[in-house]
């Protein structure tokens, strides 16, 4: 789960991290009221989940009421890389002399958290990591103890942070780790952490991603989640409890198990088609889940054909086939050709049970994918 900047900043502020004075606004009028209250200059920032907001015109500075109005008018409602901007954060602009990066994430390779500091703040840190990794100082964290204060100091001094602010930056890093740990974050980042001319530190941006698997013990964060969905189909998938990723192609894909669904996508591509989505319905294939999955792919206007690939392990093929038949009968009309392939336990019985008036059946994964790709091509032709 990815928090919006304004959500992350609220959490950061509650933990005692320094963030600029700010208000959230969803109308031009509210944005101007906020700017007047905060005092100029203000930064007006689009609250959408896209990288490079500034370059794309999603962040503007305003020095006056007139400029604030113009900025809010141009940003609210704008299309930013496919997402409509519904909210802006109006924030006191920080007069800075330097920009740092501080962040906490999970180091997968080492299987433990890592705290990072760099004096190259304000730029894409992943680029810095790729081009000059020596510019980022890292401290591996023992999760049993947390980030020791000495480690935070070592990272800050090691990165070459100015002595005058080193103590405060180290404090920000330890607080950020505690927050990361307490809120089950996968990433917590401040980029840039601004240094002002009077040697104060301010979190000018805030990134916090939370482990979906830990939301059960972060109820207040889970409650925030609904306004983090930007795509109607992704919202629907969340309601149905599916793992779903929308892509650009026209072959809809439904399957069970992440690895096998990914493989089905890859095969669609391999046979010259373009996958429209990743949809993992998980274990079992009861009629309800199958019907929901079909509803999902049928509601994607890009989808021209569907491949349904189930490897029945513990779930038997004949049960899966009945689920598919029941699900299909709930639709007045099957809007797109569906190719089904069943494998595993009782797969042959399952294939005999499938209602071939409603679906096409193929015996192997490769054949099923080829057929679906051909079906999509025929529709587009």
């Amino acid at each position, binding site marked *: 789960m990815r928090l919006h900047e304004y959500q992350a900043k609220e959490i950061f502020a509650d933990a005692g991290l320094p963030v600029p004075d700010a208000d959230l606004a969803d109308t031009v009028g509210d944005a101007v009221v906020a700017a007047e209250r905060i005092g100029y200059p203000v930064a007006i920032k689009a609250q959408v989940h896209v*990288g490079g907001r500034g370059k794309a015109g999603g962040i503007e500075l305003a020095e006056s009421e007139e400029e604030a109005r113009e900025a809010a008018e141009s940003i609210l409602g704008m299309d930013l890389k496919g997402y409509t901007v519904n909210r802006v954060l109006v924030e006191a602009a920080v007069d800075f002399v330097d920009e740092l990066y501080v962040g906490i994430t*999970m180091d*997968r*390779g080492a*299987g*433990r*958290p890592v705290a990072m500091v760099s004096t190259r703040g304000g730029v894409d840190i*992943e*680029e810095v*990591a*790729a081009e000059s990794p020596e510019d980022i100082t890292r401290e591996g964290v*023992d*999760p*049993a103890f947390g980030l020791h204060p000495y480690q935070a100091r070592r990272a800050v001094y090691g990165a070459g942070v100015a002595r005058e602010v080193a103590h405060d930056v180290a404090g920000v890093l330890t607080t950020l780790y505690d927050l990361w*740990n307490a809120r*089950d974050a*996968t990433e917590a980042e401040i980029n840039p952490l601004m240094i002002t001319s009077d040697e104060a530190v301010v979190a000018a941006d805030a990134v916090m991603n939370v*482990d*979906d*698997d*830990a939301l*059960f*013990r972060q109820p207040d964060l889970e409650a925030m989640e609904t306004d983090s969905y930007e795509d109607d189909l992704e919202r629907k998938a969340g309601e149905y409890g599916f*793992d779903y*990723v929308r*892509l650009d192609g026209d072959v809809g894909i439904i*399957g*069970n*198990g*992440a*690895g*096998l*669904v*990914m*493989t089905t*996508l*890859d*095969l*669609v*591509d*391999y046979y010259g088609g373009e*996958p429209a989505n*990743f949809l*993992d319905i998980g274990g079992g294939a009861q009629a309800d889940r199958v019907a929901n999955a079909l509803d999902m792919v049928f509601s994607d206007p890009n989808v021209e054909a569907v491949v349904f690939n189930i*490897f*029945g*392990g*513990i779930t038997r093929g004949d049960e899966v086939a009945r689920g598919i038949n029941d699900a299909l009968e709930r639709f007045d009309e099957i809007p797109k050709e569906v190719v089904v392939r069943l*494998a*595993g*336990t009782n797969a042959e019985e399952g294939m005999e049970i499938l209602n071939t008036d409603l679906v096409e059946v193929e015996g*192997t*994964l*490769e054949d099923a994918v080829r057929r679906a790709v051909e079906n999509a091509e025929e529709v587009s032709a």
Partner: protein
Amino acid sequence: MSVFVDGSTRVIVQGITGGEGKFHTEGMIEYGTNVVAGAVPGRGGQEVAGVPVYDTVTEAAEAEAADASVVFVPPAFAADALFEGLDSPLDLVVAITEGIPTQDMARVNKRLSEVDTRLIGPNCPGIITPGEAKLGILPGNVFEAGNVGLVSRSGTLTYQVVSNLTDRGLGQTTAIGIGGDPIIGTDFVDALAAFEDDPGTEAVVMCGEIGGEDEEQAAEYIAEGMSTPVVGFIAGRTAPPGKRMGHAGAIVSGSGTGTAESKIEALGEAGVPVGDTPEEVADSVEDLL
């Protein structure tokens, strides 16, 4: 021959009284696995699927001379169950549970470095030595005894590739599902090393996927001098960066690490043929044997 488990492995089921635990315990026993006990706090003295239940794993392990456990405990309590398994006289803990918070697994991982017990998983289908024992939820009828070792990050993809092998009479020594999470116990290198030491394994199939660098490390291990031939498969070639493809661990980062291309290239450089389709994987194994 086999790795990690065989017909003599004495198995405890942690979480045997839950729906999943009970169902799959019956499946394991039906397959011929030597399930000797269950462990569920507060349920000591009961019997499930014909085996005695104990309150603690230590008690179960000592009373029944067990050497492995399979964990079906729900995610919120799973890390505690894993700590308990690692703190008991067992050689192997297999964690089936999906959805354990990553920070919990970081703490388990820390403990793992301090003990000799092997962990397989979490979020995995388990491990099977065909005809002898299965610890987990794998559909036994897909597998057949033979001389191909298999290690995979995915469940159903494993079954798919195994059925491509079995259909051609290419049976398996042991198949290991190592799990799709960012932090796991046994990784590809551990599994490859075990197959390398197993005289019965004449070829190994490794099924990787996007995310992390485990496959690249495996390629390095193979290149350093693994003598048993390996065939690869990598899922997620079409996955866009920044989108999690089901498994918590299956994500290509924004900066492009963890891509299928990087893994396929690394394996190719190590001399590992990587199939474009599961069928091609079986072709390559057939050629090697």
